């Protein structure tokens, strides 16, 4: 029994980082922008949050965890949003190719994260010496009473605030996309920008906002990994393939934020499954790590076979819009 509880806890811990990335990317893709810079924006958010907390704690005698928390949160949001902004300027204003811009952003973000990660380590006095104990403790703070309920508390309430923010983001996004006027406009922009334009919707504005906010949400994924998952430290290339898993989760969730919630749990579980299978060597582990991608491919095949319009990506995904082009 305890083994199952730990497994669920670990699966959720793996899943939340991916869920942030997927939420950000769903919002972005709903505007028709295929931003493959998710891993990059995660690194940017992660390193910015870490740097903010580190600098704060270094400069203060008795750092206040709440202040560190807020600073790191804002830094991660801004850094992720900046990543989205760079992508937006390139693809919306300058009409650069979306795939190339996104991949470039990933390369850039990962490099940026590792570079400043190295710098921070140097400041801290060596690799692995970065410590933002106060801030990390705030991120790992759990709900006092609920946490103590046996089993239920372990499975549902043993996580920090960011975990619940991730799920809240999914719920709010789902409501926004399906129940509000603006959400309808955003979907129209991603499906058919020419039609949205003719209906008097500011296509560029929607694309910019969705992509920048999407980037900020991805940045939170990085922050979650650095603070809650790793406990406020940095390892170069430590994120592994979580960024790409987030992109895969978008497809798996068929562009629906609520699907992404349970999808992230599944992905998280599949991602750590190899630890629970006895007798795996270093090489055979990798086959199990492949599982999330395999499920994604299966989902892709199934949705292609069913040909249901609602399960397809936004129609103009990956194309830029220019009114006078015909």
């Amino acid at each position, binding site marked *: 029994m305890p083994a199952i509880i730990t497994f669920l806890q670990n699966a959720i811990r793996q899943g939340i980082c991916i869920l942030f990335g997927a939420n950000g990317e769903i919002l972005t893709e709903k505007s028709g922008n295929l931003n493959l810079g998710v891993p990059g924006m995660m690194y940017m958010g992660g390193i910015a949050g870490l740097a903010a907390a580190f600098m704060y704690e270094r400069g203060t005698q008795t750092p206040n965890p709440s202040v560190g928390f807020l600073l790191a949160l804002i830094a991660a949001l801004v850094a992720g949003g900046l990543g989205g902004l760079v992508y937006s300027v390139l693809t919306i204003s300058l009409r650069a190719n979306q795939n190339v811009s996104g991949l470039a952003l990933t390369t850039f973000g990962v490099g940026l994260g590792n570079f400043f990660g190295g710098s921070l380590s140097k400041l801290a006095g060596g690799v692995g010496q970065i410590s933002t104990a106060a801030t990390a403790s705030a991120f790992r703070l759990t709900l006092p009473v609920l946490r103590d309920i046996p089993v239920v508390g372990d499975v549902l309430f043993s996580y920090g605030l960011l975990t619940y923010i991730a799920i809240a983001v999914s719920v709010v996004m789902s409501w926004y996309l399906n129940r509000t006027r603006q959400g309808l406009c955003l979907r129209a922009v991603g499906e058919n920008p020419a039609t*949205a334009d003719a209906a008097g919707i500011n296509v560029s504005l929607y694309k910019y906002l969705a992509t920048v906010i999407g980037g900020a949400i991805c940045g939170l994924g990085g922050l979650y990994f650095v603070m809650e998952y790793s406990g406020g430290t940095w390892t170069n290339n430590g994120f592994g393939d979580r960024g790409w898993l987030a992109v895969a989760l978008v497809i798996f969730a068929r562009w629906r934020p609520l699907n992404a919630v349970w999808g992230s749990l599944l992905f998280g579980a599949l991602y750590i499954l190899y630890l629970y299978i006895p007798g795996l060597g270093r090489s055979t582990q990798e086959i199990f790590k492949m599982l999330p991608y395999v499920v994604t491919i299966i989902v892709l095949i199934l949705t292609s076979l069913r040909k249901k319009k609602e399960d397809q990506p936004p129609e103009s995904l990956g194309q830029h819009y220019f009114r006078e082009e015909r």
Partner: protein
Amino acid sequence: MKAENAIELRNISKRFGKVVANDHINLSVRSGEILAILGENGSGKTTLMNMISGIYYPDEGQIFVHGEEVTIRSPKDAFPLGIGMIHQHFKLVDVLTAAENIVLGLSGPTRLDITAVATRISKLAAKYGFDIDPFKKIYEMSVSEKQTVEIVKMLYRGANILILDEPTAVLTPQETDALFAVLRNMRDAGKAIIIITHKLNEVLALSDRVAVLRRGKYVGAVQTADATVESLTEMMVGSKVTLDIDRPDPVDPQVRLVMKDVTCVDPEGVITLNHASFTAYGGEILGIAGVAGSGQKELLESIAGLTPKESGEIEYYPPNSETMDITGLSAVEISRLGIKLSFVPEDRLGMGLVGAMDMTDNMMIRSYRKGGFFWADRRAPKTLAEHIIGTLEIVTPGVSTPVGKLSGGNVQKVLVGREIASAPTVLMVAYPVRGLDINSAYTIYSLLNVQKMRGVAVLCVGEDLDVLLALCDRILVLCGGRVTGVVDARTATKEQIGLMMTQSGKGGER
């Protein structure tokens, strides 16, 4: 109340580069009136209406709405003025429902109450006699249902000036009748309606007044009650323009290609070619006339093996050889027989040439199969490219310049030149002079004449009736996918062909 002008245009002009699409046009429409704007393809009807709805901005002239001068820079400016345009290509989002599409972009409370929207839509539908399901997704709808959504969308936004661009082009006769009934209801409710069309019978059946455009110029307006098919056709096609195109007599015409009862259906289930039959002779130019989308493309492509045929057959009579049935052959096999298609689409580069590649590579697209096992032969296509540049006087820095960088006329010469170079026995060209200046056009005409004198059966789809009458030996007229007749180009008149194109006349069958 005095009948006021809902819209008045004064001296409106619009140019695209050197082409004048609208030349000082004056036009007005009153509230409670249906105005038909009639004209051939390329006469500037749609351009003019796009300026009222904010898609284009006029180079010159003034627009008055209800007597006040307005500036319409984008569709967003047109909505508050009560102007709504229904385009030929519907502006609807497929995965959304009718109600969602109708309410799209409107301001209001953050939370969208779709049930309230649907109720209002149903009320509008009841008022004007529409049949619409607000919760149906667009992709599940027929063309006429989509059109209904478009019209309701405009009414929902409070439009009182409605512009419809060729609304009946995609409708069945029953759907057309239903649309007309709705339009009359809207007129009676005091709305101003402009309908762009080239179908004379519909103009006569529906409109109160007709304005005619020809080649970007305003010809005049008449009360529909005073108009007849003949008078409108004359206004539409104008008097004959004499073009000095050389037309040698056909040499020894022989049956080369026979199409028997061919029907084509597009993926959406629309019949694009309806039991078409004709014979093409070697040594003559057969012109193909018709308003855009009457089946010209399908006619050529079904011969070339590019469009699947529902029924019917095509026979090929090669010179000095046995007759053969080419109905079921693949495009490659047909091309190998010497039946060549040179289609110049609206965007010129879309079909046939790759803009980013140079001339040599574009020649290779046709000849790559002739290369060795693995290595492509670049020398022969390069020689061919140089030969075409020389003979057709193509202006280009060299064979290695990307084709997309050449001017339109030169691109077309490359396209036609490549097909001619393969020594075809049947040469099909569509819109070979589209967008070309006079000199380039004449070069293309003489190229076609050279092929004709070689005994090639030339099929030429054209837009300009004057050119077809001056260049071709016979003209086949299409209307709505049907062959409405084949006439002798030396004796036929523009009015005669114009009537056949609009299905209200009879042509001499040959």
